[in-house]
């Protein structure tokens, strides 16, 4: 009997450890960049939705691909029409968790490891990347840079422009999340 109580207590402790504590933003920033001999391709998205559950250490992102702004209008049209096909696959999202000790009551920058699934162009792939989480005045600020390969997400690049578009794309993430009430 004692053992059963102990077991239940242990499970409860394990569960209680994973209470929810949500931090949310609707104006997160994600950009991607690839440097090529002919032209650099860079696009910014300032309308990224992100949520961090600091209790369960879960994290999720979603964004509209059409919200990526390019310095060249034609690049933007080609990105949406030919590459990510944003009519068919309007959203890209990420769900996952992070590991690392983050003290929410103490301001500072904490190193974390983010692990999860990234969906682009209807294709879901596992992603793992180091990142930082900063606690600052009750806010959570996430920063991360990682690379991905368009080909992994079935984004085909025709041979005529293959030299113009990098195999590797650098993605920069900056989110400033406020506690949700």
């Amino acid at each position: 009997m004692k053992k059963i109580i102990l077991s239940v207590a242990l499970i409860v402790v394990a569960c209680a450890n994973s209470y929810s504590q949500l931090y949310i933003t609707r104006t997160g920033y994600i950009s991607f960049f690839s440097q090529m001999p002919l032209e650099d391709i860079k696009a910014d998205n300032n309308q990224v939705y992100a949520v961090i559950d600091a209790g369960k250490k879960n994290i999720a992102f979603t964004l509209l691909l059409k919200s990526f702004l390019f310095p060249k209008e034609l690049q933007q049209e080609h990105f949406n029409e030919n590459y990510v096909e944003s009519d068919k696959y309007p959203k890209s999202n990420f769900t996952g968790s992070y590991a690392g000790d983050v003290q929410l009551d103490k301001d500072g920058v904490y190193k974390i490891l983010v692990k999860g699934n990234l969906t682009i162009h209807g294709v879901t792939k596992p992603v793992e990347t180091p990142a930082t989480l900063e606690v600052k005045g009750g806010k959570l600020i996430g920063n991360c840079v990682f690379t991905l390969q368009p080909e992994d997400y079935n984004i085909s690049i025709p041979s005529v422009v293959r030299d113009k578009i990098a195999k590797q794309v650098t993605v920069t993430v900056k989110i400033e999340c406020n506690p949700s009430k």
Partner: protein
Amino acid sequence: MRIKQILLVGFLSFLFYQANAQDSSLLNILNDSLAANAKPMYVTGTFKAGHIVNMQTVEQPAQGDMLFVIQHRFGQLNSGSYNFFGLDNATLRLGLDYGITNRLAVGIGRSSYLKTFDSYIKYKLLRQTDGNEKMPLSVSLLGTISNYTQDIPGETYLNFTYRTAYTLQMLLARKFSTRLSVEVTPTYLHYNLVPTVNDKNDLFAVGTGARFKLTNRTSINAEYDYLPSGQVVSTNVYNSFSLGYDIETGGHVFQLVFSNSQSMIESQYLAQTTGRWNKGDIYFGFNISRNFNVAKHKASTPK
């Protein structure tokens, strides 16, 4: 015994942890928020190029973009093997288009057909938006002016004014799906001089065109320009019908076309098309446009 229980507890805790880790409720929160805050967005890429074949589309260079356009038509297919089925002859229009703002574009051109200069101004009045379909259509206004400079022996009275013609078009376009876009263009034409008193100086025509995408980078296009009869009577003119195949490669759009119109400018193909498809008066040719960035573009979003 104890080890088993510890393992069991560990396993249960692990299960619970896993269940939490794969919790997709966070994404649901975001998706709900995204849906609640959804703003309409401009529909892009209604057409690939500035022309369906001869008819201008609602596409135009963005602010600071310049387009160099080459439109080329060989001779008539029925002109016989001596003329290599038309390939010996050519009509060419060279054009430059520039986006002053994202809504306002201007262009100039020169055609070898009657040595014609032309110029246009195009303004995006309305832009189709997606999402909750606030704006079902894109509407642009297009004004053109043309002046042919070819010497015609014995017709020395033809001064600049007499050689000038104007058109005013309303371009109504809708992208129905990723693949299908349709455009209708009611047109008013004015010729300062017409050949006889029975010909009208002020004409009305209406064009219709469509593109159907085969792949992301290729499409087939068709265009029919209807000129109601009784407006041009001194010469036999026919409605213009054209077919095209678009190939897009990066900053280029390459269009292979077939048309019974030899000219490529509004005041000429709409009311001065003398060729007929069923007689084989078909002009094969191509349009090429090349985009250049002259200034940085500022993206705009609907308010």
